[in-house]
């Protein structure tokens, strides 16, 4: 999955999340066309009992645009079930905890998996981890963290664009 955030000169914005689902999707390649095919139907697993021709599988994708009187924030994340974690963490850190967009995106996340086990990104606050375990949360270790947030924000005529360092991203503008 990838996310692209764009803010143009006229104030228009695009937040778009695109995917072939898992790493290299279905891993089926079409040598005649050069296309790598998705495995999107696996997103029905564990979520529904039946599927129907033409139906779209459920998704965590949430390409968002936030607009206030004075600000525009274009944001989205990749990472399957970790998409919600990535965006929620970035938005809370930026809108409520007062961090810059760059710091907010970089802030280590805590992910609650489908079994309600709690997984912490490596740089997460150790004391908080211990305290949460003491409250009874089941801690597990995640092999990978796939959340990658890319965002662009316009405030007071200046535009801040941040591509997540987790995927070695880099934004560009003028």
């Amino acid at each position, binding site marked *: 999955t990838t996310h692209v955030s764009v803010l143009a000169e006229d104030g228009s914005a695009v937040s778009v999340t695109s995917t072939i689902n898992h790493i290299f999707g279905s891993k089926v390649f079409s040598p005649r066309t050069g296309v790598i095919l998705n495995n999107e139907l696996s997103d029905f697993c564990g979520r529904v009992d039946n599927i129907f021709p033409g139906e779209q599988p459920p998704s965590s994708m949430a390409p*968002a645009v936030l607009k206030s009187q004075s600000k525009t924030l274009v944001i989205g994340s990749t990472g399957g079930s970790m998409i919600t974690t990535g965006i929620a963490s970035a938005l809370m850190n930026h809108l409520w905890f007062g961090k810059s967009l760059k710091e907010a995106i970089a802030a280590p996340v805590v992910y609650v998996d489908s079994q309600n086990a709690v997984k912490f990104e490596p740089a997460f606050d150790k004391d908080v981890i211990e305290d949460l375990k003491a409250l*009874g949360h089941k801690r597990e270790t995640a092999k990978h963290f796939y959340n990658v947030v890319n965002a662009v924000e316009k405030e007071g005529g200046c535009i801040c664009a941040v591509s997540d360092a987790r995927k070695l991203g880099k934004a560009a503008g003028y």
Partner: protein
Amino acid sequence: MARSKARVYSCCALILLCLVAIIVCIAVLVRHKCPDDTFSSAAVAADSGKCSEIGRDILQSGGSAVDGAIAALLCTSVMNPQSMGIGGGSIFTVMDSSGKVNIINSRETVPRSFKPDLLKSCSKTLAGSQWIGVPGEIRGYEQAHRLYGKLPWATLFKPTIQLAREGFPIPQVQGRYLPYIDTNETQSLRKLFSDKNGNLLKTGDIVKFEKLADTLEIIANHGADAFYTGRIAEDLIRDIQEAGGTLTTQDLAAYRVTVTDAWVVPLGEYKMYIPPPPAGGIILSLILNIMKGYHLNSASLVGEQKTRTYHHYVEAFKFANGLKKHIHDPQFGSDEMAKKFTEDSFANHIRSLISSDKTHDPQYYNITPYLDSMG
């Protein structure tokens, strides 16, 4: 007499001119200078610097935000082919210059014929042709460009076609995932990332996507229909069927994008525009609505408060996990319940179930275990 009058007038005009010049200089100098690491006109945030730059260049040459996004996505399909490409699907949230927000949904769909006991294979492997959905990606670009494009369609493809044809050093992130396809079942894909001696390429080696470049060139010159009908469609379906897949040319020809209004969720001073189900924006809005009720600020991350804040956050996600079963394609079931998730009253109810000093057993969150996906 007359001569001295003329002299007075020309002095006044000169002084006036100087005044105007000084004002202009001050205005230019004081002009709102943006801090170093920000931009004053436009910006693109994509997964890689190269693709952000390609998107920016499109904007700078008069392209719309959608033009920039499409060019950046096409670039990402070769910079991060493990993540996305024209064999997948996407969801656009587009705000025009008047502030109107639309959703363009080109997520994949179930083909007409599919493995009857497909869902029984969930616990086995999630790779293989049985999991392929009808790709919508290019139809999504076509619709977005039709509604919001400014530059010619073919222009958006040029930078990526050049990259794919000329080749480029494999970026570190792409190189990290190449070992994932070093298996017997993925020989066809492995060949794409192998040198002429059959060795798997690695970070820094030059990779080319010549066949994809040909396909992109045909789409650039003949439009999206060239992918969904005609020769490319036949070639794609032939390869999928040779790999055991069930997609047909009818599936490709019948694929349709949906364009809807965005769902709007108030969030403090902001309005948050998100796509409706089957996207996951409603779960995001539920989490944020639950958390905003704790009136968080920078002090919420200090001392004991920090643990309490993250305890509430984890509890909110546990409830959200239990509600994910209500996210489905609205064309195949009501989205009334989903709409409820975006309401403050629902978030207030969930928050009232959160204990500040303990967590609970799974059934308390009424959850339905489902596979975590990583895509």
